[in-house]
């Protein structure tokens, strides 16, 4: 871990961001939404989609490299890679893009994600039609599904509820702490015209929402939405001549680790030895930075309790102190000590498998967020912390 140096440091920058509208249901294919977001990101950067010569996507993304060639007419995509495990790959995609730029395997790398996952997007059993994967499970389950699903443990939020319960047992974390996270992020969404959930929320509103899997309530869970996001990454040198203030990828790290669909191995590992904590230690060691240097934090907020655990994983507080850390509006952009997910995150803006949080991190560096942090120079962006994962530090 130590001594490896920060070999991708400052070599690549995010120069374009783009998205579709976010909605409970857009009634559009994932392919169509992906192309809209990609065109928007290229336009933002002042580059033609034809300039893209590298692609990094999630492995579960339904728009693949051949689809991109077919839709964009690009003569060549030289570099292609995909990240595994859904949300765990949401920032790893930027690490891989930076690696491609640093090694000159590509000059203009596209990173994107498109999801038709709103409830009313469940059109049928074909995977290209959107909807929830667990409603398409077969009657006989091979692989890891054979251990969870036959007992009724069928979805991420149920697995997360069990991990969350253990955090409460070990450290005394409470539902009030979870509510603090939900309320802080909603306060950001209220100022964000792209956010799907913009009604005011109080601690009492959170506690009045129904349980989906105790101890998690509806307002502890990410919303399910349709939409797509895209980013364009190029060399820092070239970025200086483009349209936007670049968000420079100052450092990045990856780590394998547990996954929530494998609770027997996840629960056997201490969180300090699992993927997110390992990524955090690598980032601080390779950049020489410390948590106190970070102006805003972007984490994979699929559930309120995992924001609390991410604060611990990345060293913003000691293990077990994430609950007390978030009290008193600590995550709010208007005066909190660590503004977090200032777009409203996946709890209140949209659930584009984390990529919408990456876009907001870029806006903070540009100074264009609707919940702008004053003099925002350094942000930490982290993928899901129950998966093999990755994170980057972006700077001006």
């Amino acid at each position, binding site marked *: 871990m130590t001594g490896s140096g920060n070999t991708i440091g400052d070599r690549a920058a995010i120069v374009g961001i783009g998205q579709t509208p976010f909605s409970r249901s857009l009634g559009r294919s994932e392919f169509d939404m992906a192309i809209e977001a990609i065109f928007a990101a290229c336009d933002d950067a002042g580059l033609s989609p034809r300039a893209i010569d590298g692609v990094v996507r999630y492995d579960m993304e339904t728009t693949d490299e051949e689809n991109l060639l077919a839709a964009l007419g690009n003569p060549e995509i030289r570099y292609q890679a995909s990240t595994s495990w859904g949300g765990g790959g949401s920032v790893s995609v930027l690490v891989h893009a930076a690696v491609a730029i640093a090694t000159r395997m590509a000059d203009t790398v596209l990173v994107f994600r498109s999801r038709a996952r709103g409830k009313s997007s469940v059109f049928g059993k074909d995977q290209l039609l959107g909807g929830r994967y667990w409603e398409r499970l077969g009657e006989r389950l091979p692989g890891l599904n*054979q251990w969870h699903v036959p007992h009724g*443990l069928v979805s991420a939020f149920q697995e997360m509820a069990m991990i969350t319960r*253990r955090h409460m047992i070990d450290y005394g974390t409470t539902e009030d702490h979870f509510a603090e996270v939900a309320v802080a992020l909603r306060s950001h969404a209220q100022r964000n015209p792209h956010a799907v959930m913009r009604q005011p929320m109080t601690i009492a509103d959170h506690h009045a929402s129904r349980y989906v899997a105790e101890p998690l309530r509806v307002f502890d869970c990410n919303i399910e939405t349709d939409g797509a996001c895209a980013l364009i990454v190029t060399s820092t040198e070239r970025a200086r001549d483009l349209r936007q203030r670049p968000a420079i990828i100052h450092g990045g790290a990856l780590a394998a680790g547990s996954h929530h669909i494998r609770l027997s191995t996840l629960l056997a590992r201490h969180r300090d030895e699992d993927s997110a904590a390992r990524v955090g230690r690598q980032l601080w060691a390779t950049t020489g930075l410390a948590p106190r240097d970070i102006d805003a934090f972007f984490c994979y907020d699929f559930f309120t309790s995992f924001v609390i655990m991410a604060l611990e994983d990345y060293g913003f507080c000691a293990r077990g102190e994430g609950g007390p850390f978030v009290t008193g509006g600590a995550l709010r952009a208007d005066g909190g000590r660590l503004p977090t997910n200032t777009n409203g995150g996946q709890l209140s803006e949209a659930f584009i498998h984390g990529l919408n949080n990456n876009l907001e991190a870029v806006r903070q560096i540009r100074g264009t967020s609707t919940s702008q942090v004053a003099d925002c120079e350094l942000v930490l962006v982290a993928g899901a912390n129950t998966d093999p994962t990755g994170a980057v530090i972006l700077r001006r």
Partner: protein
Amino acid sequence: MADLRAQVMTRGRPLPQITLDSREFYEAARRGELRFQRCSDCGTWRHYPRPSCPQCLSRSHRWELASGRGRVYTWTIVHGPTLPAFQDEVPYNIVDVLLDEGIHFQSQLLDCPPDEIHADMPVRAVFVPVSEDITLVKFRRAGTC
């Protein structure tokens, strides 16, 4: 067994597909035995099944009989939404049991109201046949029959 079967068997629920890696587990369960892989060299128990020991890298293991005793490590009460085949059961519990052998195993606790489940609660395995080839391992509070 008939009463147990009635508690967990509902038409249309997905069942495990027995694989080359998990075959011994399900064959044992069908005989009313809880067996897991245990390293022949260093004695470490493991679940899920895997081809080498993460402690000592030995490639040798046996499927050994576990005690069936353990304690509730964590749990959830599912209110839904959930898979349609389980929707009629809500609210239902799912527990993670830390077995005396050091293995985490996910299942359900039978005959226990949600508000009586607590951390470190002693439990024991029970065997519930649900099809010709599959017997699911569930748990009950220790000291109950």
